[in-house]
Protein backbone atom coordinates (compact mmCIF):
# COMPACT_ATOMS: atom_id res chain seq x y z
CA UNK A 1 0.00 0.00 0.00
CA UNK A 2 1.33 3.44 -0.88
CA UNK A 3 1.50 6.22 1.69
CA UNK A 4 -0.99 8.19 -0.41
CA UNK A 5 -3.66 5.54 0.12
CA UNK A 6 -3.23 5.93 3.87
CA UNK A 7 -4.14 9.63 3.97
CA UNK A 8 -7.43 10.65 5.54
CA UNK A 9 -10.09 12.09 3.23
CA UNK A 10 -9.58 15.59 4.66
CA UNK A 11 -5.80 15.34 4.21
CA UNK A 12 -6.19 13.94 0.70
CA UNK A 13 -8.46 16.85 -0.28
CA UNK A 14 -6.01 19.36 1.23
CA UNK A 15 -3.05 17.79 -0.58
CA UNK A 16 -4.84 18.11 -3.92
CA UNK A 17 -5.93 21.66 -3.26
CA UNK A 18 -2.36 22.66 -2.35
CA UNK A 19 -1.13 20.85 -5.45
CA UNK A 20 1.15 18.60 -3.40
CA UNK A 21 -0.39 15.63 -5.13
CA UNK A 22 -2.65 15.21 -8.14
CA UNK A 23 -6.07 13.58 -8.21
CA UNK A 24 -4.67 11.10 -10.76
CA UNK A 25 -1.98 10.05 -8.28
CA UNK A 26 -4.49 9.56 -5.47
CA UNK A 27 -6.91 7.73 -7.75
CA UNK A 28 -4.14 5.43 -8.96
CA UNK A 29 -3.10 4.75 -5.35
CA UNK A 30 -6.68 3.75 -4.47
CA UNK A 31 -7.08 1.66 -7.63
CA UNK A 32 -3.85 -0.17 -6.88
CA UNK A 33 -5.03 -0.91 -3.34
CA UNK A 34 -8.50 -1.91 -4.60
CA UNK A 35 -6.98 -4.39 -7.07
CA UNK A 36 -4.68 -5.71 -4.36
CA UNK A 37 -7.41 -6.36 -1.76
CA UNK A 38 -10.29 -7.38 -4.03
CA UNK A 39 -9.32 -11.09 -4.35
CA UNK A 40 -9.21 -11.37 -0.55
CA UNK A 41 -12.04 -9.08 0.53
CA UNK A 42 -14.44 -9.01 -2.42
CA UNK A 43 -15.46 -5.50 -1.37
CA UNK A 44 -16.15 -4.17 -4.89
CA UNK A 45 -18.91 -5.19 -7.28
CA UNK A 46 -17.43 -2.97 -10.00
CA UNK A 47 -14.16 -1.04 -10.16
CA UNK A 48 -14.54 1.72 -12.76
CA UNK A 49 -10.87 2.23 -13.46
CA UNK A 50 -10.96 4.02 -16.82
CA UNK A 51 -13.78 6.38 -15.86
CA UNK A 52 -12.13 7.16 -12.53
CA UNK A 53 -8.79 8.05 -14.11
CA UNK A 54 -10.55 10.13 -16.75
CA UNK A 55 -12.48 12.04 -14.05
CA UNK A 56 -9.29 12.51 -12.03
CA UNK A 57 -7.51 14.00 -15.08
CA UNK A 58 -10.40 16.42 -15.53
CA UNK A 59 -10.17 17.36 -11.85
CA UNK A 60 -6.46 18.08 -12.17
CA UNK A 61 -7.03 20.21 -15.26
CA UNK A 62 -9.80 22.12 -13.49
CA UNK A 63 -7.48 22.88 -10.58
CA UNK A 64 -4.87 24.26 -12.98
CA UNK A 65 -7.46 26.63 -14.40
CA UNK A 66 -9.03 27.77 -11.12
CA UNK A 67 -8.28 27.70 -7.42
CA UNK A 68 -12.01 27.61 -6.63
CA UNK A 69 -12.77 23.95 -6.22
CA UNK A 70 -15.14 21.89 -4.10
CA UNK A 71 -14.33 20.41 -0.67
CA UNK A 72 -13.81 16.93 -2.13
CA UNK A 73 -12.13 18.01 -5.33
CA UNK A 74 -10.36 15.06 -6.93
CA UNK A 75 -10.90 12.69 -3.97
CA UNK A 76 -11.78 9.09 -4.96
CA UNK A 77 -14.80 7.57 -3.19
CA UNK A 78 -16.72 4.34 -3.74
CA UNK A 79 -20.29 3.61 -2.69
CA UNK A 80 -22.66 0.84 -1.73
CA UNK A 81 -24.14 -0.43 -4.99
CA UNK A 82 -27.60 1.04 -4.36
CA UNK A 83 -26.96 4.70 -5.17
CA UNK A 84 -28.54 5.26 -8.54
CA UNK A 85 -26.76 7.01 -11.42
CA UNK A 86 -28.95 7.54 -14.47
CA UNK A 87 -28.12 4.95 -17.11
CA UNK A 88 -25.62 3.02 -14.96
CA UNK A 89 -26.15 -0.38 -13.39
CA UNK A 90 -27.06 -0.55 -9.69
CA UNK A 91 -27.29 -4.19 -8.66
CA UNK A 92 -28.36 -3.52 -5.06
CA UNK A 93 -26.34 -6.64 -4.26
CA UNK A 94 -29.02 -8.80 -5.86
CA UNK A 95 -29.49 -11.25 -8.69
CA UNK A 96 -32.89 -9.73 -9.50
CA UNK A 97 -31.43 -6.28 -10.27
CA UNK A 98 -28.12 -7.43 -11.72
CA UNK A 99 -28.81 -5.49 -14.93
CA UNK A 100 -30.92 -2.69 -13.46
CA UNK A 101 -30.19 0.74 -14.90
CA UNK A 102 -31.88 3.51 -12.95
CA UNK A 103 -33.34 6.46 -14.82
CA UNK A 104 -32.43 8.96 -12.11
CA UNK A 105 -29.34 9.94 -10.14
CA UNK A 106 -29.39 10.00 -6.34
CA UNK A 107 -29.32 13.49 -4.86
CA UNK A 108 -26.39 12.54 -2.60
CA UNK A 109 -24.39 11.34 -5.60
CA UNK A 110 -25.02 14.63 -7.38
CA UNK A 111 -23.92 16.54 -4.27
CA UNK A 112 -20.70 14.56 -3.96
CA UNK A 113 -19.98 15.10 -7.64
CA UNK A 114 -20.58 18.83 -7.27
CA UNK A 115 -18.12 18.79 -4.35
CA UNK A 116 -15.56 17.30 -6.74
CA UNK A 117 -15.48 13.65 -5.65
CA UNK A 118 -14.34 10.94 -8.07
CA UNK A 119 -16.45 7.76 -8.44
CA UNK A 120 -14.04 4.85 -8.08
CA UNK A 121 -16.53 2.01 -8.21
CA UNK A 122 -19.57 0.30 -6.71
CA UNK A 123 -19.22 -1.64 -3.50
CA UNK A 124 -20.52 -5.00 -2.40
CA UNK A 125 -23.48 -5.01 -0.03
CA UNK A 126 -25.94 -7.39 1.52
CA UNK A 127 -28.59 -8.42 -1.01
CA UNK A 128 -31.21 -5.65 -1.07
CA UNK A 129 -29.59 -4.14 2.05
CA UNK A 130 -31.31 -6.85 4.03
CA UNK A 131 -28.81 -8.59 6.27
CA UNK A 132 -26.52 -7.38 9.04
CA UNK A 133 -23.56 -9.67 8.36
CA UNK A 134 -22.33 -9.00 4.81
CA UNK A 135 -23.15 -12.45 3.44
CA UNK A 136 -24.05 -12.32 -0.24
CA UNK A 137 -24.89 -15.49 -2.16
CA UNK A 138 -25.02 -13.71 -5.54
CA UNK A 139 -21.89 -11.55 -5.55
CA UNK A 140 -19.87 -13.49 -3.00
CA UNK A 141 -19.47 -12.75 0.69
CA UNK A 142 -17.65 -9.56 1.54
CA UNK A 143 -14.81 -10.10 4.00
CA UNK A 144 -13.42 -8.28 6.99
CA UNK A 145 -10.08 -6.53 6.31
CA UNK A 146 -8.84 -7.39 9.81
CA UNK A 147 -9.50 -11.09 9.33
CA UNK A 148 -11.12 -12.31 6.09
CA UNK A 149 -12.66 -15.30 7.90
CA UNK A 150 -14.91 -12.88 9.78
CA UNK A 151 -17.95 -10.92 8.69
CA UNK A 152 -17.78 -7.26 7.77
CA UNK A 153 -21.17 -6.49 9.25
CA UNK A 154 -23.92 -5.35 6.94
CA UNK A 155 -25.64 -4.33 5.03
CA UNK A 156 -23.04 -1.73 3.89
CA UNK A 157 -20.44 -4.50 3.88
CA UNK A 158 -18.30 -3.28 0.99
CA UNK A 159 -18.26 0.25 2.39
CA UNK A 160 -16.83 -0.90 5.73
CA UNK A 161 -14.39 -3.30 4.09
CA UNK A 162 -13.09 -0.94 1.37
CA UNK A 163 -12.69 2.08 3.66
CA UNK A 164 -11.03 -0.10 6.30
CA UNK A 165 -8.68 -1.56 3.70
CA UNK A 166 -7.77 1.95 2.42
CA UNK A 167 -9.12 1.22 -1.06
CA UNK A 168 -11.10 4.50 -1.08
CA UNK A 169 -11.18 7.58 1.15
CA UNK A 170 -14.82 7.31 2.10
CA UNK A 171 -18.09 5.72 1.15
CA UNK A 172 -21.84 6.11 1.36
CA UNK A 173 -23.77 3.42 3.17
CA UNK A 174 -27.38 3.19 4.29
CA UNK A 175 -28.76 2.37 7.73
CA UNK A 176 -32.25 0.99 8.40
CA UNK A 177 -31.45 -1.18 11.42
CA UNK A 178 -27.70 -0.74 11.85
CA UNK A 179 -26.39 -1.13 8.31
CA UNK A 180 -23.83 1.69 8.55
CA UNK A 181 -22.84 1.32 12.21
CA UNK A 182 -22.35 -2.45 12.11
CA UNK A 183 -19.86 -2.55 9.19
CA UNK A 184 -18.14 0.57 10.51
CA UNK A 185 -17.72 -1.12 13.90
CA UNK A 186 -16.65 -4.48 12.48
CA UNK A 187 -14.15 -2.98 10.03
CA UNK A 188 -12.60 -0.36 12.33
CA UNK A 189 -13.91 2.80 10.63
CA UNK A 190 -16.27 5.65 11.51
CA UNK A 191 -19.93 5.49 10.42
CA UNK A 192 -22.81 7.91 10.88
CA UNK A 193 -26.50 7.02 10.93
CA UNK A 194 -27.95 10.53 10.69
CA UNK A 195 -31.23 11.82 12.09
CA UNK A 196 -34.16 10.83 9.89
CA UNK A 197 -34.60 13.66 7.41
CA UNK A 198 -31.09 15.11 7.58
CA UNK A 199 -29.97 13.47 4.32
CA UNK A 200 -32.02 12.94 1.15
CA UNK A 201 -33.03 9.38 0.25
CA UNK A 202 -33.94 10.27 -3.33
CA UNK A 203 -32.50 7.87 -5.88
CA UNK A 204 -31.58 5.00 -3.60
CA UNK A 205 -32.88 1.46 -3.19
CA UNK A 206 -35.72 1.47 -0.65
CA UNK A 207 -35.50 -1.04 2.19
CA UNK A 208 -37.96 0.47 4.66
CA UNK A 209 -38.64 4.06 3.67
CA UNK A 210 -39.86 5.09 7.13
CA UNK A 211 -36.53 4.15 8.68
CA UNK A 212 -33.97 4.28 5.84
CA UNK A 213 -31.13 6.75 6.33
CA UNK A 214 -28.11 7.63 4.19
CA UNK A 215 -24.73 8.30 5.78
CA UNK A 216 -20.97 8.08 5.32
CA UNK A 217 -18.34 5.54 6.39
CA UNK A 218 -14.92 7.14 6.68
CA UNK A 219 -11.52 6.72 8.29
CA UNK A 220 -11.83 9.62 10.74
CA UNK A 221 -14.56 11.64 12.43
CA UNK A 222 -13.36 14.80 10.65
CA UNK A 223 -13.78 12.99 7.31
CA UNK A 224 -17.29 11.96 8.33
CA UNK A 225 -18.17 15.53 9.31
CA UNK A 226 -17.06 16.81 5.90
CA UNK A 227 -19.00 14.25 3.87
CA UNK A 228 -22.11 14.73 6.02
CA UNK A 229 -22.05 18.49 5.50
CA UNK A 230 -21.91 17.95 1.75
CA UNK A 231 -24.73 15.43 1.47
CA UNK A 232 -27.10 16.86 4.12
CA UNK A 233 -29.88 19.36 3.63
CA UNK A 234 -33.24 19.96 2.04
CA UNK A 235 -34.11 18.19 -1.20
CA UNK A 236 -37.36 18.93 -3.05
CA UNK A 237 -37.14 15.44 -4.54
CA UNK A 238 -37.39 13.90 -1.07
CA UNK A 239 -40.24 15.60 0.81
CA UNK A 240 -39.31 13.77 4.02
CA UNK A 241 -36.02 15.66 4.04
CA UNK A 242 -35.75 18.46 6.60
CA UNK A 243 -35.45 22.07 5.45
CA UNK A 244 -33.42 23.16 8.46
CA UNK A 245 -30.02 24.76 7.84
CA UNK A 246 -27.11 22.33 7.91
CA UNK A 247 -24.43 23.24 10.47
CA UNK A 248 -20.77 23.52 9.52
CA UNK A 249 -19.92 20.22 11.16
CA UNK A 250 -16.16 20.60 10.65
CA UNK A 251 -16.11 23.98 12.36
CA UNK A 252 -18.05 22.56 15.29
CA UNK A 253 -15.42 19.85 15.85
CA UNK A 254 -13.32 22.40 17.66
CA UNK A 255 -15.48 22.89 20.78
CA UNK A 256 -14.90 21.45 24.23
CA UNK A 257 -16.95 18.88 26.13
CA UNK A 258 -16.19 19.94 29.70
CA UNK A 259 -19.29 19.35 31.81
CA UNK A 260 -21.01 17.38 29.06
CA UNK A 261 -23.11 14.53 30.44
CA UNK A 262 -22.45 11.20 28.78
CA UNK A 263 -25.14 8.65 29.55
CA UNK A 264 -24.35 4.98 29.96
CA UNK A 265 -27.46 2.76 29.80
CA UNK A 266 -27.85 0.41 32.76
CA UNK A 267 -30.27 -1.84 30.88
CA UNK A 268 -30.29 -3.68 27.52
CA UNK A 269 -27.13 -2.36 25.81
CA UNK A 270 -24.65 -4.48 27.78
CA UNK A 271 -26.68 -7.69 27.96
CA UNK A 272 -24.55 -10.48 26.55
CA UNK A 273 -21.48 -8.24 26.21
CA UNK A 274 -18.12 -9.99 26.43
CA UNK A 275 -15.68 -8.91 29.13
CA UNK A 276 -13.38 -7.60 26.42
CA UNK A 277 -16.10 -5.36 24.94
CA UNK A 278 -17.01 -4.07 28.42
CA UNK A 279 -13.37 -3.24 29.11
CA UNK A 280 -13.01 -1.28 25.86
CA UNK A 281 -16.20 0.64 26.64
CA UNK A 282 -14.88 1.57 30.10
CA UNK A 283 -11.55 2.66 28.64
CA UNK A 284 -13.23 4.85 26.03
CA UNK A 285 -15.39 6.46 28.72
CA UNK A 286 -12.26 7.17 30.77
CA UNK A 287 -10.77 9.00 27.75
CA UNK A 288 -13.90 11.13 27.42
CA UNK A 289 -13.92 11.81 31.16
CA UNK A 290 -10.37 13.11 30.88
CA UNK A 291 -11.79 16.00 28.81
CA UNK A 292 -14.10 16.95 31.67
CA UNK A 293 -17.20 15.05 30.52
CA UNK A 294 -19.31 13.45 33.25
CA UNK A 295 -20.39 9.84 32.94
CA UNK A 296 -23.95 9.30 34.14
CA UNK A 297 -25.46 5.84 34.44
CA UNK A 298 -29.18 5.71 33.78
CA UNK A 299 -31.92 3.30 32.69
CA UNK A 300 -33.40 3.91 29.23
CA UNK A 301 -36.93 3.06 28.03
CA UNK A 302 -36.90 -0.61 27.04
CA UNK A 303 -35.11 -0.87 23.67
CA UNK A 304 -36.34 -4.46 23.20
CA UNK A 305 -39.91 -3.30 22.56
CA UNK A 306 -38.63 -0.60 20.19
CA UNK A 307 -36.78 -3.36 18.34
CA UNK A 308 -40.01 -5.28 17.71
CA UNK A 309 -41.95 -2.20 16.61
CA UNK A 310 -39.11 -1.21 14.29
CA UNK A 311 -39.18 -4.73 12.90
CA UNK A 312 -42.95 -4.48 12.27
CA UNK A 313 -42.40 -1.39 10.12
CA UNK A 314 -39.31 -2.70 8.39
CA UNK A 315 -40.70 -6.08 7.31
CA UNK A 316 -44.09 -4.64 6.30
CA UNK A 317 -42.53 -2.05 4.02
CA UNK A 318 -40.02 -4.54 2.63
CA UNK A 319 -42.88 -6.92 1.76
CA UNK A 320 -44.44 -4.14 -0.33
CA UNK A 321 -41.13 -3.36 -2.08
CA UNK A 322 -40.52 -7.04 -2.86
CA UNK A 323 -44.08 -8.38 -3.26
CA UNK A 324 -43.99 -8.84 -7.02
CA UNK A 325 -40.60 -10.58 -7.09
CA UNK A 326 -41.47 -12.75 -4.08
CA UNK A 327 -44.48 -14.05 -6.02
CA UNK A 328 -42.82 -14.38 -9.41
CA UNK A 329 -39.20 -15.35 -8.71
CA UNK A 330 -38.68 -16.32 -5.05
CA UNK A 331 -35.83 -18.63 -6.07
CA UNK A 332 -33.77 -15.58 -7.04
CA UNK A 333 -33.54 -14.48 -3.41
CA UNK A 334 -31.05 -15.98 -0.97
CA UNK A 335 -32.49 -17.95 1.92
CA UNK A 336 -31.36 -15.15 4.25
CA UNK A 337 -33.25 -12.37 2.50
CA UNK A 338 -36.33 -14.36 1.52
CA UNK A 339 -36.67 -15.41 5.15
CA UNK A 340 -36.53 -11.79 6.27
CA UNK A 341 -39.12 -10.59 3.78
CA UNK A 342 -41.71 -13.38 4.12
CA UNK A 343 -43.07 -12.45 7.57
CA UNK A 344 -43.86 -8.94 6.31
CA UNK A 345 -46.87 -10.27 4.41
CA UNK A 346 -48.48 -11.27 7.69
CA UNK A 347 -48.27 -8.14 9.82
CA UNK A 348 -51.83 -6.77 10.13
CA UNK A 349 -52.18 -3.31 8.58
CA UNK A 350 -53.46 -1.96 11.89
CA UNK A 351 -50.35 -3.24 13.69
CA UNK A 352 -48.10 -1.60 11.09
CA UNK A 353 -49.87 1.75 11.51
CA UNK A 354 -49.85 1.44 15.28
CA UNK A 355 -46.09 0.89 15.13
CA UNK A 356 -45.80 4.08 13.06
CA UNK A 357 -48.05 6.03 15.43
CA UNK A 358 -46.15 4.83 18.48
CA UNK A 359 -42.88 6.29 17.18
CA UNK A 360 -43.79 9.80 18.31
CA UNK A 361 -44.89 8.53 21.73
CA UNK A 362 -41.70 6.58 22.30
CA UNK A 363 -39.52 9.36 20.94
CA UNK A 364 -41.18 11.79 23.36
CA UNK A 365 -40.62 9.34 26.19
CA UNK A 366 -36.98 8.78 25.24
CA UNK A 367 -36.25 12.49 24.94
CA UNK A 368 -37.81 13.19 28.31
CA UNK A 369 -36.36 10.31 30.26
CA UNK A 370 -32.91 10.25 28.64
CA UNK A 371 -31.98 13.44 26.82
CA UNK A 372 -33.28 15.75 29.52
CA UNK A 373 -30.70 14.13 31.81
CA UNK A 374 -27.72 13.53 29.51
CA UNK A 375 -26.36 15.08 26.31
CA UNK A 376 -25.34 11.89 24.54
CA UNK A 377 -25.63 8.15 25.13
CA UNK A 378 -22.60 5.87 24.90
CA UNK A 379 -22.92 2.12 24.30
CA UNK A 380 -21.27 -0.72 22.38
CA UNK A 381 -22.37 -1.07 18.74
CA UNK A 382 -22.11 -4.85 19.09
CA UNK A 383 -21.90 -6.83 22.32
CA UNK A 384 -19.76 -9.49 20.67
CA UNK A 385 -16.78 -9.29 18.29
CA UNK A 386 -17.58 -9.74 14.56
CA UNK A 387 -18.40 -13.47 14.17
CA UNK A 388 -16.89 -15.67 11.49
CA UNK A 389 -18.63 -15.93 8.14
CA UNK A 390 -19.14 -19.66 8.68
CA UNK A 391 -20.75 -19.38 12.11
CA UNK A 392 -23.18 -16.67 11.02
CA UNK A 393 -24.37 -18.42 7.86
CA UNK A 394 -28.05 -19.41 8.27
CA UNK A 395 -28.66 -23.10 7.57
CA UNK A 396 -32.41 -22.73 7.68
CA UNK A 397 -35.00 -19.93 7.71
CA UNK A 398 -35.46 -20.58 11.42
CA UNK A 399 -31.89 -19.32 12.08
CA UNK A 400 -32.39 -15.92 10.49
CA UNK A 401 -34.40 -13.95 13.07
CA UNK A 402 -32.00 -14.95 15.85
CA UNK A 403 -28.89 -14.03 13.83
CA UNK A 404 -30.33 -10.65 12.92
CA UNK A 405 -31.42 -9.89 16.48
CA UNK A 406 -28.03 -10.86 17.89
CA UNK A 407 -26.21 -8.31 15.75
CA UNK A 408 -28.74 -5.49 15.56
CA UNK A 409 -30.06 -5.47 19.15
CA UNK A 410 -28.08 -2.30 19.95
CA UNK A 411 -28.60 -0.50 16.65
CA UNK A 412 -32.19 -1.04 15.49
CA UNK A 413 -33.93 0.80 18.39
CA UNK A 414 -32.25 4.05 17.29
CA UNK A 415 -33.69 3.66 13.78
CA UNK A 416 -37.16 3.41 15.26
CA UNK A 417 -36.59 6.64 17.20
CA UNK A 418 -35.03 8.36 14.17
CA UNK A 419 -32.13 9.67 16.27
CA UNK A 420 -28.54 10.15 15.13
CA UNK A 421 -25.82 7.65 16.09
CA UNK A 422 -22.11 7.59 15.32
CA UNK A 423 -19.98 4.45 15.40
CA UNK A 424 -16.40 5.09 16.55
CA UNK A 425 -13.43 2.66 16.60
CA UNK A 426 -12.47 1.94 20.22
CA UNK A 427 -9.85 -0.80 20.15
CA UNK A 428 -9.25 -4.39 19.15
CA UNK A 429 -9.95 -7.77 20.69
CA UNK A 430 -7.09 -10.10 21.58
CA UNK A 431 -7.75 -11.76 18.19
CA UNK A 432 -7.22 -8.43 16.43
CA UNK A 433 -10.86 -7.69 15.58
CA UNK A 434 -12.20 -4.13 15.88
CA UNK A 435 -14.41 -2.96 18.74
CA UNK A 436 -16.53 0.20 18.57
CA UNK A 437 -18.76 2.36 20.69
CA UNK A 438 -21.68 4.36 19.40
CA UNK A 439 -22.68 7.83 20.49
CA UNK A 440 -26.39 8.53 20.22
CA UNK A 441 -27.87 12.00 20.50
CA UNK A 442 -30.84 14.32 20.23
CA UNK A 443 -32.52 14.92 16.86
CA UNK A 444 -30.25 16.82 14.47
CA UNK A 445 -27.44 16.99 17.04
CA UNK A 446 -24.85 15.32 14.80
CA UNK A 447 -22.48 18.22 15.50
CA UNK A 448 -22.20 17.25 19.14
CA UNK A 449 -21.61 13.57 18.32
CA UNK A 450 -18.84 14.58 15.91
CA UNK A 451 -17.25 16.87 18.49
CA UNK A 452 -17.15 14.23 21.23
CA UNK A 453 -15.83 11.57 18.86
CA UNK A 454 -13.26 13.92 17.31
CA UNK A 455 -11.81 14.71 20.73
CA UNK A 456 -11.68 10.97 21.40
CA UNK A 457 -9.73 10.42 18.17
CA UNK A 458 -7.27 13.16 19.13
CA UNK A 459 -6.33 11.06 22.15
CA UNK A 460 -6.41 7.61 20.58
CA UNK A 461 -4.95 6.01 17.47
CA UNK A 462 -7.35 3.12 16.79
CA UNK A 463 -8.54 4.86 13.62
CA UNK A 464 -4.98 5.18 12.35
CA UNK A 465 -4.24 1.46 12.46
CA UNK A 466 -4.21 -0.20 9.08
CA UNK A 467 -4.98 -3.88 8.41
CA UNK A 468 -2.13 -5.88 6.88
CA UNK A 469 -3.41 -7.39 3.65
Amino acid at each position, binding site marked *: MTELAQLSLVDAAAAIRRKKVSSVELTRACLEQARHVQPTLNCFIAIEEDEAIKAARKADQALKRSARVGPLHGVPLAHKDMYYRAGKISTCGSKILKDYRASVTATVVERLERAGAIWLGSLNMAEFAANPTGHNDHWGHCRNPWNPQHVTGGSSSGSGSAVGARACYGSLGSDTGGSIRLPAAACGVVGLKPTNGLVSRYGILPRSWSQDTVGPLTRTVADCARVTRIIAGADPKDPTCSTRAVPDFEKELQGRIKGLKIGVPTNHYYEGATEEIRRHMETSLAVLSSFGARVVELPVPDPARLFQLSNAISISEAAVVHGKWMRERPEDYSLYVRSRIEPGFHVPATTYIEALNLRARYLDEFLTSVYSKVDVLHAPVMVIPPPTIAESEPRDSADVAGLVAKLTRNTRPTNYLGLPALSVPAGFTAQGLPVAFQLMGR*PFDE*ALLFRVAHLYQRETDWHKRVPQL
Partner: protein
Amino acid sequence: MSASTAKTVRAQSSELRGIDIGEGRAAQIAEDIGRILEAADAARGLLDFNDEPSRFTAVLASSSPTGRARRR
Protein backbone atom coordinates in the same frame (compact mmCIF):
# COMPACT_ATOMS: atom_id res chain seq x y z
CA MET B 1 -55.44 -10.10 20.01
CA SER B 2 -55.10 -13.84 19.48
CA ALA B 3 -51.76 -15.19 18.32
CA SER B 4 -51.05 -15.67 14.65
CA THR B 5 -51.10 -19.39 13.81
CA ALA B 6 -49.30 -21.46 11.20
CA LYS B 7 -52.67 -22.27 9.65
CA THR B 8 -53.60 -18.59 9.28
CA VAL B 9 -50.17 -17.73 7.88
CA ARG B 10 -50.34 -20.50 5.27
CA ALA B 11 -53.84 -19.58 4.20
CA GLN B 12 -53.06 -15.86 3.97
CA SER B 13 -49.91 -16.56 2.07
CA SER B 14 -51.45 -18.71 -0.60
CA GLU B 15 -54.94 -17.14 -0.85
CA LEU B 16 -54.08 -13.46 -0.51
CA ARG B 17 -50.51 -13.32 -1.80
CA GLY B 18 -50.19 -16.22 -4.18
CA ILE B 19 -47.13 -17.52 -2.32
CA ASP B 20 -47.05 -21.14 -1.17
CA ILE B 21 -45.08 -21.95 1.96
CA GLY B 22 -44.65 -25.17 3.90
CA GLU B 23 -46.18 -25.89 7.28
CA GLY B 24 -42.85 -25.69 9.11
CA ARG B 25 -41.99 -22.30 7.67
CA ALA B 26 -45.52 -21.05 8.38
CA ALA B 27 -45.03 -21.98 12.04
CA GLN B 28 -41.75 -20.01 12.15
CA ILE B 29 -43.41 -16.97 10.59
CA ALA B 30 -46.29 -17.22 13.06
CA GLU B 31 -43.71 -17.14 15.85
CA ASP B 32 -42.00 -14.02 14.37
CA ILE B 33 -45.35 -12.28 13.98
CA GLY B 34 -46.33 -13.31 17.49
CA ARG B 35 -43.41 -11.34 18.93
CA ILE B 36 -44.43 -8.26 16.96
CA LEU B 37 -48.11 -8.53 17.94
CA GLU B 38 -47.10 -8.94 21.56
CA ALA B 39 -45.03 -5.72 21.44
CA ALA B 40 -47.86 -3.84 19.73
CA ASP B 41 -50.44 -5.20 22.18
CA ALA B 42 -48.34 -4.04 25.11
CA ALA B 43 -47.94 -0.53 23.68
CA ARG B 44 -51.38 0.09 22.21
CA GLY B 45 -52.66 1.70 25.40
CA LEU B 46 -50.31 4.64 24.83
CA LEU B 47 -52.07 5.69 21.66
CA ASP B 48 -54.62 8.47 21.43
CA PHE B 49 -57.29 8.66 18.75
CA ASN B 50 -55.70 11.91 17.50
CA ASP B 51 -52.34 10.23 16.79
CA GLU B 52 -51.12 9.89 13.22
CA PRO B 53 -47.75 8.83 11.75
CA SER B 54 -46.66 12.34 10.76
CA ARG B 55 -46.51 13.37 14.43
CA PHE B 56 -43.18 11.53 14.59
CA THR B 57 -41.57 13.93 12.11
CA ALA B 58 -43.01 16.85 14.05
CA VAL B 59 -41.50 15.62 17.33
CA LEU B 60 -38.11 15.13 15.65
CA ALA B 61 -38.21 18.62 14.17
CA SER B 62 -39.23 20.28 17.41
CA SER B 63 -36.60 18.54 19.51
CA SER B 64 -33.40 19.79 17.93
CA PRO B 65 -30.39 20.43 20.19
CA THR B 66 -31.08 22.51 23.27
CA GLY B 67 -27.50 23.63 22.86
CA ARG B 68 -26.02 23.06 26.31
CA ALA B 69 -22.76 21.89 24.82
CA ARG B 70 -22.94 24.19 21.84
CA ARG B 71 -22.99 27.27 24.09
CA ARG B 72 -19.67 26.26 25.64
